[in-house]
């Protein structure tokens, strides 16, 4: 493909394939140590509630149960996954102390000699929860009279723009991320047509065929080795160090081949729990999530709702765009503020829109926490933007191709956030796609380019 290179551009076979077809690729689930114990969680049956009592006495009597881990066993019971790169605030406990915030949240962990024993004992733990009304709808969550489910008083991420939220004071009622450019009011006044749309994507599961599996093994000298299905070993290391209150360098994280991630294994979701258990019992501990846990506990792609309004000229140009994006973070922060930024700054899509006003809200609900999934933030807005583009074109009576060609961004223009564009190549890609699909584009479109 590229003559000037020797190795780059060569269609070399994936070196992992031989291991895959012979069944010798090593995944975490194949890692085992003598004396290894298993974990099962006792999970919340309700979406929101106060924990009144945890009675482990019956479960503890089951032969083979080694220990039941509760919030009291966690040295530093608060964290946020991406603290290392400045995403805050820390708002998630390893195990909840007094309140559960989503259905299925782990309340305590049974550590036992094998999976069956742990499961059996987990069923014998009695938890008393006073159910509270859950917040599930993002619009409802943002209303002033909504039940508050965060520590800071509103069901939205309210800290300053950028990702260093934890250090800045909140301003209720203000979107978390704002993009303004040009004069959107005038654009709408001058518009020949205004087109509105509202687009929703509910949560989607990554569903890799390999579920989450983690083995944590205490080592001499207060050290710990963690084998886990992670996409980000250093996130795991940082978070485990934080909650155990030990130096990060005491922890070694190993991710052997991972059986599919798609973003679902970016967040340290359960490694902290396994690490606490291993340190408390001083033995290797394993946890493999069931498929049901994959669906109901593991992160999902966030739900989003985008309301969009375009000011159009009759000759087929987008003069301005207003958009309001709601991102369902679920019960805890995880990576959501980052996701909202990624969504909000990309609300123009690959188009030049001179006047914009975009609001991005990071909303908290009583749902399993959401996080990254393939195309995080952009998958969602690509969907909204391309549906809106089609709506625009059809309302104007302009051909769908022509409308996109006319509005495609060009090199030398600037993005909604004021960055000069130097990598534009959409016009060329659209020409290729039209040709591939047998579409005969008119000459005036074929003459267009990303350079003018």
């Amino acid at each position, binding site marked *: 493909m590229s003559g000037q290179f020797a190795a780059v551009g060569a269609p070399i076979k994936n070196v992992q394939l031989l291991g895959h077809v012979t069944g010798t690729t090593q995944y975490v689930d194949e890692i085992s140590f003598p004396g290894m114990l298993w974990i099962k969680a006792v999970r919340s049956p309700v979406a929101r509630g106060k924990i009144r009592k945890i009675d482990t006495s019956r479960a503890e009597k089951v032969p083979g149960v080694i220990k039941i881990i509760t919030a009291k066993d966690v040295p530093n019971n608060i964290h946020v996954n991406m603290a290392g790169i400045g995403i805050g605030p820390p708002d998630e406990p390893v195990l909840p102390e007094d309140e559960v915030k989503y259905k299925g949240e782990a309340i305590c962990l049974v550590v036992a000699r094998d999976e*069956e024993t742990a499961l059996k004992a987990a*069923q014998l733990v009695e938890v008393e929860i006073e159910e509270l009304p859950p917040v599930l709808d993002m619009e409802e969550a943002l209303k002033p009279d909504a039940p508050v489910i965060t520590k800071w008083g509103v069901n939205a991420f309210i800290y300053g723009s950028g990702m260093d939220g934890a250090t800045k004071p909140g301003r209720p009622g203000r979107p978390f991320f704002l993009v303004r450019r040009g004069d959107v009011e005038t654009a709408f006044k001058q518009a020949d047509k205004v087109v509105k749309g509202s687009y929703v994507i509910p949560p989607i599961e990554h569903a890799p065929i390999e579920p989450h599996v983690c083995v944590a093994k205490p080592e001499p000298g207060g050290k710990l080795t963690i084998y886990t299905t992670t996409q980000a070993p250093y996130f795991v290391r940082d978070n485990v160090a934080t909650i155990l209150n030990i130096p990060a360098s005491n922890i070694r994280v190993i991710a052997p081949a991972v059986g599919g991630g798609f973003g679902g294994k970016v967040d340290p979701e359960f490694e902290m729990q396994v690490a606490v258990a291993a340190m408390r019992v001083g033995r290797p501990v394993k946890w493999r999530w069931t498929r049901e846990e994959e669906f109901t506990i593991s992160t999902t792609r966030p739900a989003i709702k985008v309301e969009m309004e375009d000011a159009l000229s009759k000759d087929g140009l987008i003069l301005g765009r207003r958009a309001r994006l709601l991102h369902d973070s679920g019960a805890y922060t995880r990576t959501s503020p980052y996701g909202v930024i990624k969504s909000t700054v990309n609300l123009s899509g690959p188009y030049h829109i001179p006047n914009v006003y975009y609001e991005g809200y990071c909303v908290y609900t009583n749902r399993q926490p959401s996080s990254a999934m393939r195309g995080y933030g952009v998958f969602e807005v690509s969907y909204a933007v391309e549906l809106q583009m089609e709506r625009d074109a059809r309302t104007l009576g302009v051909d769908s191709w022509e409308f996109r060609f006319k509005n495609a961004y060009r090199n030398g223009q600037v993005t909604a956030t004021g960055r000069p564009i130097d990598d534009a190549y959409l016009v060329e890609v659209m020409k290729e796609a039209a040709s591939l699909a047998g579409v005969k584009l008119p000459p005036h479109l074929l003459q267009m380019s990303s350079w003018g």
Partner: protein
Amino acid sequence: MSQVASGYYAPASLRDAISLKRRLREKALFVAGGTAAVQLVSKMIAEPEAIISLEKVPLDYVKIRGNVVEIGATTPISRLLETRGLPTALREAAENIHGLALKDMATVGGNIFTPAPAGDIATALLSLDATLVLRGTRGVRTVPLSKFYRGPLKYNIKADEVLTAIRIRRPPRLSSFLKQTPWRYSGPTIASVSVGLDLDKNKKARRVMVAIGGLTTHPYRVKRAERLLTSKKLTSELIEEAAKHLVDNVDIIDDALASSWYREVIAQVLFKKILNRFI
């Protein structure tokens, strides 16, 4: 009797299987193909003290003699597909169980006990007016499949009885099965419909049997639609009229796969498609 080891029994004969069950009662779980039963065990929903595997009991057969089709209860779905001369609806239902492993493991008998969104073979058998042969310590009795279901996971079978065979006497000349799934080749049933009937010389419908699956835990017969169609010439108007009564008094499942509204619509669409083929 062959006992592999404590707790796991694989009797070689039906008689042994039944006496074992009689001895062990609720402590024992029958396992045929395993696709439903083993999950109960591995998820610890059931903790049987013994397993009675039917793998060695010689119930894997299909016999077609004259007007009678008899299928052994542990016959896997793949065996049905290897057999010529089965009623169309039964073959079509078997074809709609996708996946090589599932076809090899799932048994016809097991399918009758499997609630929605599986159990498509039972839907087809219901439209063929199949009868179940149950053998217990006190002998053999037969129960029409249409009288077998008694509510969610409740069956007309006694603790010491084993389903040994499914019998279809005088299968209807025309029969057909259709189902809708979320993806073309996937398993879970949104709705399945199976119809069996005979047409007389005047093209009037005789012996009409309409079965619906996927809408409740177990498939059911639609007597009202059957009556409407019986002794009449099939017309699209008549089919349309009969389709209105497919879900009378039925509490339709509303779940992650589909709403009850959609399930009803699809049952009607499939029903009409099948009958329009017979016009």
